[in-house]
């Protein structure tokens, strides 16, 4: 079975502070890993993806994530957040045909 765990349901931070959103996965086969962002009343938008190669992946809006196979993690980071980053963030994996999503982490950025 494949699964994605996002332990933090909500992460409050102040504007311009760094943030890390945690994602751990479980799979018996090699996987591709993704981070999606969902703004209120909108669909999901791909932030970044890891398919192979360099374990540090850079995405849109200044986000990056690091794939760690030994710790089965794919944490999302941003060195300085903006108010506009307030949204729900979903980690997902694809091992076979379909995407399996985590339960999401709500990032709340305050002034």
């Amino acid at each position, binding site marked *: 079975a494949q699964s994605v765990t996002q332990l933090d*349901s909500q992460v409050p931070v102040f504007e311009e502070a760094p943030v890390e959103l945690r994602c751990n996965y479980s799979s018996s086969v090699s996987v*591709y890993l993704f981070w999606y962002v969902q703004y209120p009343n*909108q669909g*999901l938008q791909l932030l970044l993806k890891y398919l192979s190669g360099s374990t540090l992946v850079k995405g849109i809006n200044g986000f990056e994530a690091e794939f760690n196979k030994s710790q089965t993690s794919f944490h999302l980071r941003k060195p300085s957040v903006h108010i506009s980053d307030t949204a729900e963030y*979903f980690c*997902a994996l694809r091992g076979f045909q379909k995407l399996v999503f985590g339960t*999401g982490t709500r990032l709340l950025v305050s002034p």
Partner: protein
Amino acid sequence: EAGVAQSPRYKIIEKRQSVAFWCNPISGHATLYWYQQILGQGPKLLIQFQNNGVVDDSQLPKDRFSAERLKGVDSTLKIQPAKLEDSAVYLCASSLPGSDEQFFGPGTRLTVL
């Protein structure tokens, strides 16, 4: 380039009624997905089409849910009859064949009373 279109955006029905959702994918995207996103959870794949054929419907509750993509373009998801636990956002996504990137529509928020 137009994105994935879905309608309606919101729907409120009573239990045991029927409801249908429509999705028009990005032009040229042969693969189409329907997801169910219950409040506080991540999206769960209900059904995946490749053109007008079903690739995966293993998590579709077939006793009440049905989906079709007759001409390999737009798609309809139907629930008949609806239950309270069907209250969720129904997301449609599309992708090019073999691509890892799925493009999502804004979703339809269904409330079953």
